[in-house]
């Protein structure tokens, strides 16, 4: 089996894209197309299971690396590799995509073929983002996620979908231009796009003019990632995009694409610019805290279920940023875990909201009420996922938030204390929403006839619920792999810190 080692990453990355190509050739029979897309996404998921199975925890650095020249001038390589940080994010992507196919089974009934082509292309691009170790390749995949997602929102969304799609596109596009400028600067000075090469060059001080440019380079990368996360006050595209996107779009947007931003911060901002990360950490953490509290407060007053979930993402991703810029082992472990937990739980929430939308064609909370009576199974699933998102112990939300807060507290107690209020807020808005939607009497008589979940919908939801449970009970399965990678990422910070202490 181990001869797969050299090709497994390319297989996982490109099977969805090849699937998309094949889809183009399949005649327009919607059922065949759906089944084919499901098979492709499941195949990708099964192959991606190889990654943790043969992952050597003791081996430092990147696994399954492939490094081949792509373009000789400029010196661009197809360099992909996997470590404990990217491993689970890749798996999260391959895990959520089949669920997205399932959840879109009936809700997408027009231009079905194009929908699944876009979905599979998007999967390839997202996996590529997490695997690329060549900065150029990274940028390439990063930008490639834009078009499919913008089209998914703009074509298959509802309401003000065009506005949302264009806003999403422009925000991300303009922000990533700054990253491109920073990339080009690094290339001009080092002659390489290779992440590891550049990292070594920077750490050994071989990059001419780096000291003067570093603050700007840091910002160039940071802005691109902060928009994606989204960090307050750059979050305004997110509620629009989420509310108007089709369910699968929301799931992938919240579940995976937001993590591309935090992953980028962790990999590139911390990896390439440790000193600038240190220097900028205070205001970034304050923005993260504002995001946590502001996101929660705004979520509380939303009249629309999807908007509640969207703002909850702003709040939860604030935890991730808080954890990353605490530069503590616990904080970074927690940040990684929140990313995964949020991907599973929020993915689940969006799927549930989408299921309701298929029945009622609205997300307005005031049109619901007492839904637990006609839809008991649905209500149960919803409750489990809400509790996971709130951070109930033994479900996956708790572990990550706890670690992040522990890390933040180590860094500066007041951050920990302020962050901890976010946990309370999230309980408030999610449970309050749950209460208004499910409990009490059925306020709208037409809701009495709502059908409960069917087998396909349950099939899409079970994996998220199971994952939420297993991650909450046995987080070490994940953390064991995350931990050494995070420790490696933190090495320069320990050095920076000791330098500061030594002076």
């Amino acid at each position, binding site marked *: 089996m181990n001869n797969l080692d050299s090709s497994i990453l390319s297989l996982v990355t490109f099977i969805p894209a090849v699937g998309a190509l094949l889809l183009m050739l399949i005649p327009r029979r919607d059922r065949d197309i759906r089944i084919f897309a499901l098979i492709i996404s499941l195949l990708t998921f099964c192959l991606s299971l190889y990654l943790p199975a043969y992952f050597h925890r003791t081996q430092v650095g990147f696994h399954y690396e492939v490094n081949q020249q792509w373009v*000789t*001038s400029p010196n661009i390589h197809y360099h992909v590799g996997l470590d404990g940080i990217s491993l689970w994010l890749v798996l999260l992507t391959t895990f959520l995509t089949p669920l997205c196919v399932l959840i879109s089974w009936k809700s997408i009934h027009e231009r079905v073929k194009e929908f699944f082509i876009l979905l599979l292309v998007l999967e390839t691009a997202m996996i590529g983002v997490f695997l690329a170790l060549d900065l150029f390749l990274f940028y390439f995949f990063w930008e490639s996620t834009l078009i499919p997602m913008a089209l998914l929102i703009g*074509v298959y969304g509802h309401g003000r979908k065009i506005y949302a799609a264009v806003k999403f596109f422009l925000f991300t596009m303009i922000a990533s231009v*700054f990253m491109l*400028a920073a990339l080009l600067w690094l290339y001009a000075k080092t002659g390489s796009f290779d992440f590891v090469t550049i990292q070594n060059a920077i750490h050994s001080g071989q990059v001419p003019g780096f000291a003067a440019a570093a603050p700007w380079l840091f910002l160039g990368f940071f802005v691109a990632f902060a928009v994606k996360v989204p960090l307050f006050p750059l979050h305004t595209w997110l509620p629009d995009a989420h509310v108007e996107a089709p369910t699968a779009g929301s799931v992938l947007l919240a579940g995976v694409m937001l993590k591309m931003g935090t992953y980028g911060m962790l990999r590139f901002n911390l990896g390439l610019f440790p000193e600038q990360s240190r220097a900028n950490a205070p205001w970034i953490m304050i923005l993260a805290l504002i995001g946590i509290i502001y996101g929660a407060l705004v979520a509380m007053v939303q009249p629309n279920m999807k908007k509640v979930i969207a703002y909850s993402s702003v709040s939860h991703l604030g935890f991730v940023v808080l954890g990353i810029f605490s530069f503590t082992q616990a904080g970074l472990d927690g940040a990684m875990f929140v990313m995964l937990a949020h991907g599973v739980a929020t993915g689940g929430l969006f799927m549930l909201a989408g299921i309701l939308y298929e029945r009622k064609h609205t997300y307005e909370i005031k049109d619901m009420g007492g839904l637990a009576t006609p839809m008991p199974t649905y209500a149960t699933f919803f409750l489990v996922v809400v509790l996971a998102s709130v951070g109930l112990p033994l479900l996956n939300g708790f572990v990550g938030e706890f670690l992040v807060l522990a890390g933040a507290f180590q860094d500066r107690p007041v951050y920990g204390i302020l962050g901890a209020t976010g946990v309370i807020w999230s309980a408030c808005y999610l449970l309050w929403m749950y209460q208004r939607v499910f409990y009490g009497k059925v306020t709208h008589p037409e809701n009495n006839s709502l059908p409960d979940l069917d087998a396909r919908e349950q099939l899409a939801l079970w994996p998220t619920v199971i994952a939420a449970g297993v991650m909450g009970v046995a987080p070490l399965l994940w953390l064991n792999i995350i931990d050494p990678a995070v420790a490696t990422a933190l090495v320069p910070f320990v050095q920076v810190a000791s330098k500061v202490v030594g002076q």
Partner: protein
Amino acid sequence: MSTPQIIPVSSDYIRILPEIVLSVFGMIIMLLDPLMDEESSQKTLSLIGLGGALAGLVATWFMGQDPGMAFWNMVRVDGFSVFFHFLILSIGAVVILTSYEYMAVQRIRAGEYYGLILFGMVGMCLMTSAVELVLIFIALEISSISTYILAGFRRRSATSSESSLKYFLLGSFATAFFLYGVAMMFGATGSTNIDVISAALRSNSIPVLAYVAMALMFVGLGFKIAAAPFHIWTPDVYEGAPAPIVGFMSTAPKAATFAVLLRLVFEANAPGRFWLIWVSAALSMTIGNLAALVQTNVKRLLAYSSIAHAGYMLVAFAAAPELGTSAVMFYAASYAAMNVGAFAVVSHLAGAGERHVTLEDYAGLGRRSPSLAAVLTIFLISLIGIPITGGFFAKFYVFSAALSANLVGLTLIGVINSAIGAYYYLKIIVVMYMRDAREEMSVPPVSWGVATALMMSLAATIYLGVLPQSVLGFAQRSAKVLVQQPDAPLTAGPAPAPAVHSTN
């Protein structure tokens, strides 16, 4: 020029073989045209035109086998000129393929249309291999006069006549500037040969006259490439001219003029160019993109976009010679692929009398004709500069060339501009996919000519975006030869041969 040779030898003719072939085919078209009725002339003449362009490509291959000087050092065949010959002829072939259907739909008698395209290409090709300013001027005029006429080819439309007249008046004015510049350069250096000028400018202190000459020549050439502030004619001319011709005008003469500019700036080492180019590049990018934001006519929108793209290309002229040259060459190739493709779609959709050229007419195209919409989307994505398309690498090479010359300011202006530019290209995509058509207009079926043209442009766009290496490598090798011309140009021997393996 003191060369013993009085009569041209056969190798001289080989080195202008593509031009000869094109002229012969052009003349055949002119001779056949009066003998045919309208119905049969459409098909026959377009086929002869296509044959001419393809024969020109073959001739380019022969020419490339035998690099060197010809006609008393007036023509140089090197990798650089082979590259541009190939590019211009491919553009011509694709445009001719697009035109057949267009001419039939517009009910324009083909007549000298295809002949003019071929003659125009003669001029453009000659521009890229000429190293003698007077010859460059003549070639420029051959190319310009053909395009003046072609711009007015929709005879029944007033906008087309306006377009032609405007282009002609302003164009002749601009070429006069160029000629004036040539004269001054002769005064400053005592020669009109680029190699001699290069040597003169390198060895002595540079006379003030040379700066004036460069500025004047830049005015003339800046007009042809639609660089700001000499761009005013562009939107009106593009709006009125027949759509396939706009695709042609915005790529082929531009590529040829950029070739001339490259020879002037980097081979002749013209003085005082830095700020000239800096300002023009910054202005073109900014004016082009900002003005494009508010356009509702697709042809005008693409006109402003072409101004902006001229600006991006000019950025590379401010960079180091070798990197800059190869970046411009690559940009010219990928811009040609995507823009000719985009205009092929535009001319297909325009319909009789070019009535459907507003953004509104593109509404719901994603539903009415998924494949055309998808193809246009890819061209637009490439124009934005998003990966897996040629436009991305083109911008990338230009900006990285600029950055390695420490042109941070200009690069920033360019990068911000390409972000602004994304908006209006995106607007077209949005309209195509996310708006419903006001009235159900059926899209006419795509003829084989347009389909082939689209496939070729699409393949080139994607190829340049995925495997840019081969084209870039060729551009780099030719750029190296271009910027390292021998210091003793008076010896008549063949110039050092670039490694020309194949023409593509």
